[in-house]
Structure formats: C-alpha cells, structure tokens
C-alpha cells in the first residue's frame, strides 16, 4: 500500500486527471489495467494517486489527533482533579456531537479542501485519543517507577514525557494505527457524502461515490476503490494488532 503511494509520486500510467471523451468506460485491458471512468480517466492512475491522498489524510489527521490527544489526555490524566474533569467533559461533548456537524463546521469555516478535510478528521480523532492517553496516565501516575522518579526530584514535565509517556506508547500506537484506518474511512465517508476531498483530485471515497452511479455499466469502477479502502484499512488494523502483540511490555 505504502509502496503504491510512493510509486505514484514518480509514476502513474496516465495523468490521473486527464480526460478523454472517447475513452469513457473502457473495461480493464492492457492499456488501462483497471479500465477508465466516466470521464475517460485511467482508474489505475487515479487509484494510485488516491493512495497518496489516503496516506496524506491518514498520516496528517492521525498526527493532529495524536498531538491533540496527547496534550489533552496527558494534562487531564496527570493533573487529575477538576482540570481532568473539565477537559474530559469537553471531550465528552465533542464525542456526543454528531461528527458530521463538526466536520461541516470545520469545512465550512475554512473551505472544503484536502487540508481542511484533514484538520476536520484529525480534530474528530482528538477526544478518542485523549481518552486513551488519559487512562494510560491515570494508570501510570501511581506506579512505583513514577514515584521513584519523583523521589529523585524529576520535574512534572519530565515525569509526564520522559517516564510515563514511553510506557503508554503501545496502546497509543495501537490506537494511532487504528485511527489511521479510521481516518481513511472517515475521509472516504466524507468524500462519499461530498464533503471531503475536492475533485478532480482522486480520493477513494470520492471515486466510490462517483462509481456508484455507474455500477452496472462499469462494475470495475466501484470494485477498485472499495477493495482498496478495505485492504488498506485491513492492513492497518493488522499492523495495529501486530504492534499490540509485539509491544506488550510484559511479552
């Protein structure tokens, strides 16, 4: 998957956005391995390009969700008390708010495009991530090695990020790779609803959306992005599982 994204940086068989009225709905063949779409664009090229979009969205959105979640979760978990209560209530509220509304807001405020889609998805990932980080901090806060760090005079920041954080990395990394697939799905969903990536930039969700109108005429069109999304998500879920198994501190 990653390879496809990298390949697409250097090479796509055709210009993914080049249209050609004559080549509309060509079924898969040697010249167009996955066929062409309703604009006569090469689907393989668009899938490849779409993998890049997916990774962009995945990495950056997870990055945003992760950094926001870590800061908020760490603050809430480490400080406890009313700061914890207040932060977590805000996170609860964000979680209770329909995601679509949040996405709409962010996208409406700053125009819908790749960056803002990423921001929207990233922001939506913050509450979940901050909960995981928080519970990690709450668990670790009372552990003897944290006490030990305090006993030698370590500062709060150092305890939070030098001592506790590396130890809650594994659930966080697992959550991150899960939210990576979550982000890809969210982008596909948003694009599917017409709120995400703007055309003509290919995104799998958008392709699926477009393909849906041509299901019986060009079945290959709906299959390719659907399978791609499924495979990518599957890949990251498996990766998460693998990491969970591997990074288990006691295993």
């Amino acid at each position: 998957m990653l390879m496809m994204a990298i390949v697409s940086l250097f090479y796509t068989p055709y210009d993914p956005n080049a249209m050609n009225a004559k080549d509309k709905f060509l079924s898969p063949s040697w010249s167009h391995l996955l066929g062409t779409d309703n604009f006569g664009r090469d689907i393989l090229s668009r899938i490849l390009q779409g993998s890049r979009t997916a990774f962009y969205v995945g990495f950056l959105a997870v990055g945003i969700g992760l950094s926001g979640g870590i800061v908020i979760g760490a603050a809430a978990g480490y400080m406890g008390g009313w700061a914890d209560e207040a932060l977590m209530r805000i996170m609860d509220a964000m979680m209770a708010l329909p995601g679509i509304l949040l996405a709409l807001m962010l996208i409406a405020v700053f125009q819908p495009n790749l960056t803002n889609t990423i921001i929207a998805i990233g922001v939506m990932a913050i509450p979940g991530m901050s909960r995981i980080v928080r519970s990690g901090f709450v668990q670790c806060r009372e552990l003897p090695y944290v006490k030990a760090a305090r006993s030698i005079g370590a500062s709060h920041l150092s305890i939070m990020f030098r001592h506790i954080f590396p130890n809650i990395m594994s659930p966080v990394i697992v959550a991150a790779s899960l939210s990576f697939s979550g982000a890809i799905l969210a982008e596909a969903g948003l694009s599917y609803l017409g709120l995400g990536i703007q055309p003509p930039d290919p995104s799998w969700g958008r392709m699926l959306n477009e393909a849906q109108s041509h299901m019986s005429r060009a079945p290959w069109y709906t299959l390719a992005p659907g399978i791609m999304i499924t495979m990518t998500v599957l890949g990251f879920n498996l990766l998460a599982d693998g990491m969970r198994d591997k990074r288990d501190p006691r295993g």
Partner: protein
Amino acid sequence: MPTRDALIEVRGLTKRYPSGSGKWGASQYVHAVNDVSFRIYPGETLGLVGESGCGKSTTGDMLANLIAPSAGEIVYDGRSIHNHASKSAKQLRKEIGVVFQDPYSSLNPRHRIGSILQEPLRIHREGSAEERLRAARDMLELVGLDESYAARYPNELSGGQRQRIGIARALMLKPRFIVADEPVSALDVSVQAQIVNLLQDMQKRFSLTTLFVSHDMNVVQLISDRIAVMYLGRVVEIAPAAELFRQPQHPYTQALLSAIPADMPSQKRERIVLEGEVPSPIHPPSGCTFHTRCRHATSACKEQAPVLREAGEGRLVSCILT
C-alpha cells in the same frame, strides 16, 4: 542514643485519604496514619513493622516527601521539610533516597539501566556527562554488577539484580537518609540474603540513616537498631531490636512475634493466634484501636486511647495495661 540529636523527628504525623462518601454524601476518610511520632538518629536504622495496610508505606512516603501529611510535622536535620522553598526542596531530594518494594515496577521498563542511574545526577545537574557516566559505572560495580548492565533494560534483569539497581539509584546522590519500603519482600530467600547483605554494606559505606519498612520480622530484626511496631495507623511500640524480641510489651507485638514461623521443626513456640479481622481504617475502633482483638482488653481499653509512653530504657509502648 537519646543524647544525640535526631536526624529526623516526626511529630503527630497524620495522613487521611479521602475514600468515597457515606450514606448521606458525607466525605469519608481512610485514617492511614494517625498521630505518629518518633525519631531517627544519625546512622541508625529504624525498622517499621506491622500488618498489611497499617500505614507503613504511607509513613515512609511522607518521610521521603512523596506525599504531604494531613497533619503533623517532619523535621529533617532541624528543619521542617514541608515549608521548604522549592530550591531547598530539591536539595532535600538529594539528601533523602528511596528504595521501593517491587523491583519490577519501580524501574521504568523503557529506560536503560545506565540512564536510570544517571538520571538523578542529571536532574540535579551534577557533573559532566562523562562524570555521570563514570559515577553510574562505579555505582554498578559497588552493588555487584558489572558495567555491561548499563546498556540493558530492566526486563533483562532478575529480581535481585533489579533491586540492586533500585538501591544504586537511591544512592547515586549520596543521600544521608534512606527510606527502604519492603526492599526484600518480593524476593526469594537466597536473593533476599544478597540484598540484605548489600543494604547493610551500603549503610556502613555511606553511613546511612535508614527507615526500613518491612513485614518480615526476621529481616527487620536482622537489619534494624530499633523497631517501631504499627497497628492500624498508630505506632504501638518502639524498642531496640533485641529488647523487642526478647520481651515484647504491647499485646499486639507479642502476637506478632509469636506468629513468626519457627526456625527448626523442634522449636515450635507457643502461639498467640489473633481472633477476628483487622478493623476498617475508615472507622477505627474507639479507645485503643487494638482492643477488639486483644486478649487482655478491659472495658477501659474501649474508652481510653493510650499514648506512647516510656517503658524502660529507650522503649516506648502505647498500652494502658503495661
């Protein structure tokens, strides 16, 4: 002993933990430590024993300045440790080292041994990077491990080796006072012996003053100069180790000592088996907290709370009957 100045003097130390709420929403407290007073003199080891949950660790933590007391005062080297400015609070951290019970969870599993040992020096900005490295290596050698261990992670070490690291870390800043909270309880007999030896060795080498918390009477007897016995948040008896074993005065101490398993099959001793359960620290019994389980309890014990009082040479006991 009494002629010397105490390094640490604890007065009326009390710790309450909030514990949920009662029927009508009133806050409840666990009375973990209740009005505890004692002294530790320079160079001496005070053993602190008692059943699980009686407040030993809480006392130790307060002495190590890891938690703040709810009431009372700890005077270290003539100064109360709780109203220190942050700068001297940091100095205090240098002077008081802590060894923890569980060698598995008290070392950060993500840090290498070398870094664990250097960290105290780094925090207190002591020496250059090289000097810190050397100090860590020297310390490793001192606790009986070779320097190759510096590059390892805690999970690559056995329990005994980890506890050596725990001790080494506590000693890195050359403290004067050590709080050791059950440092050998989690270890096998054979390893326990190694660590006990090491601790005693270190005590001598650094002329340490120690608070040694344990529930293993044999170990405490071996390592302590004096022993304080706690029951339900209170100190019920303090005496020089040999004296205490020879002639325990508080009924609880007597029961505790009699419960120690025999050394040899032949020397089975007469056992005082305590009846009932340890009362809840949320609602400790009135009067003498031990009266509910005491063989000698009288009605006076229910009402009158005993105070720790002199009972012989260097001995204190808190029982109205003795």
